[in-house]
């Protein structure tokens, strides 16, 4: 089976204005300007199969949005080739748009003042969805989420969670081959996040839709993706199974504790006690980066509790940023 998305040595460059600082600089800028070329995406290649859910990760400004814009046909690559379902998206943006669905951050693409059902009906016409397919989709939606109360509510009156949910439903409505989800769970509470993840998972299973997911939330990645692609500064750093990555970094967790007294001093004494792990302190928390292959978090916590009085604690998974930082610093073999 041929790949649904085929990216070969794609590079995208932008010209950016170098602004000078201060009042004097601004006046200078008025007369002479100085541009520099920035490589937002630097010879990236990947191939994605129909039905995959791919986590597309990277810190802010890494080039994720630029790649997605190229795949959606909004941007033309400077070099290299992109094929979406066998055609170059930029050459015919409108035709490409028929095959994809997009949820872009918190920017709702629904008609702000209209009840959701009216937005759906408009989309039905715009995408030329047949009655049969539309009814089928609505039935499917009804079985997956409690859609009734949403349908008659204007989008502007919805909570962020409801809006995101609606946007995702709208993106899948015309049964696209690929759906791009950019930060779908940003700003949502835990239960809403879980709901959205279940929905995406179910739609992917049901319709065999390819999903490209960009996110900063490792929870999204864990719940949905088998494969992840990481880029930073436009360069591809990693493209493989998530299990593979976890083998390297998944054993790290951050234990955060709060103790009365001078945090810096205490942090130093803890560091002496636990020489294997790195300990740091800020105004609120003392953080211990625990490698679970060496010691269980619960044991570390027990040891700490015996020596000092812990007021509060938190346990954090290693964040995407940390993973990426580690990959960037240490590389992946």
């Amino acid at each position, binding site marked *: 089976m041929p790949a649904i998305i085929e990216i070969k040595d794609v590079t995208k460059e932008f010209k950016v204005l170098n*602004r000078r600082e*201060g*009042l004097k600089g*601004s*006046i200078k*800028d*008025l007369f002479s*300007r100085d541009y520099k070329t920035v490589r937002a995406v630097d010879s990236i290649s990947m191939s994605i199969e129909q039905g995959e859910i791919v986590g597309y990760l990277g810190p802010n400004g890494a080039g994720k949005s630029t790649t997605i814009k190229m795949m959606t046909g909004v941007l033309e690559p400077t070099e290299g080739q992109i094929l979406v379902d066998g055609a170059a998206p930029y050459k015919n943006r409108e035709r490409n748009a028929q095959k994809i669905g997009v949820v872009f951050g918190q920017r709702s693409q629904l008609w702000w003042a209209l009840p959701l059902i009216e937005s759906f009906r408009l989309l039905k016409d715009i995408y030329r969805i047949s009655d049969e397919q539309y009814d089928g989709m609505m039935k499917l939606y009804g079985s997956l989420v409690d859609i009734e109360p949403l349908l008659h509510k204007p989008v502007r009156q919805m909570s962020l969670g409801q809006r995101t949910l609606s946007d995702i439903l709208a993106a899948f409505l015309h049964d696209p081959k690929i759906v791009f989800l950019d930060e779908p769970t940003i700003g949502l509470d835990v239960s809403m996040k879980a709901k959205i993840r279940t929905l995406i998972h179910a739609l992917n299973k049901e319709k065999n839709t390819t999903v490209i997911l960009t996110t900063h939330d490792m929870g999204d990645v864990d719940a949905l993706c088998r494969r992840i692609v990481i880029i930073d500064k436009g360069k591809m750093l990693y493209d493989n199974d998530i299990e593979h990555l976890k083998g390297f970094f998944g054993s790290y967790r951050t234990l955060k504790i709060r103790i009365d007294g001078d945090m810096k001093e205490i942090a130093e004494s803890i560091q002496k006690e636990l020489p294997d792990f790195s300990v740091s302190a800020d105004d609120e928390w003392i953080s211990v980066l625990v490698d679970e292959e060496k010691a269980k978090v619960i044991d570390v916590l027990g040891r700490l509790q015996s020596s000092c009085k812990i007021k509060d604690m938190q346990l954090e998974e290693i964040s995407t940023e940390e993973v990426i930082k580690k990959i960037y610093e240490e590389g992946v073999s």
Partner: protein
Amino acid sequence: MKLKRYLALTRAGIIEALQFRLGSFVIVVGNLLYLIVVYFLWKAIYASAGTKVVNGMTFSDTLIYLVLATALFNFMEMYAVWEIGRAIQSGKIVLDLLKPMKYRTYLFWSYSGSFVTNFFMTFLPTFIVVTAVTHGAVHLGLNLLCFVISVVMAIIINYSIDFIVGTICLYTESIWGINIMKQVIVLLLSGATIPLAFFPDGFRRAVECLPFQSIYNAPLSILLDADPEPKKLVTTLGIQLIWCVVMTVISKLFWKASLRRITVNGG
């Protein structure tokens, strides 16, 4: 140092305005084109009239008046109604209220930067060109000083009116409607589009009792009057001063009374 804080806002405004090089260029060129339209239009009007003086104004009087009115408009217009209206609708107003400065003051000084850039980019060039082209039709003497004082008061009156109208946005979602009404009324009744001298007598006397004529008509008539009677000068400036105080007080009180809507309703 209160003033220092205000001037920091002015400086930020100037920098912001200068970021847009092409924008500034367009403003200057567009303004020039606009003045040309006004010139030809009134030249044709006077040519058709057959007489040199109409309603006590010659062609060059009318032209100078209108050109400088346009320059004043560009220099004073600050779209404060939009700013306030949007801040209210987006809820940003709550953040603005948290700033350690009164909102009314904060907004005014935020705009002061654009006063400075607009002065140098639109008003001054226009003024120099007009003075040069008309060979001394603009008298350069004491009236210049009075003109500056008058303009400062005009800015304050204009800002107060904008602020009052902006405050109305707390009560309605219709910023566009509110703003267009204000703009139309101010431009017509202040004599910015047609000099007040052309208005029919009764209408003119009514308009002279309103605050709007203090914005454009007052400073311009001071500037164009080469040999002003002290009594007339004092009356014009005096009326402006009264409106200045009255409008400032009204805008402050109205804002204070309306603010309770935000604090009570939570925006």
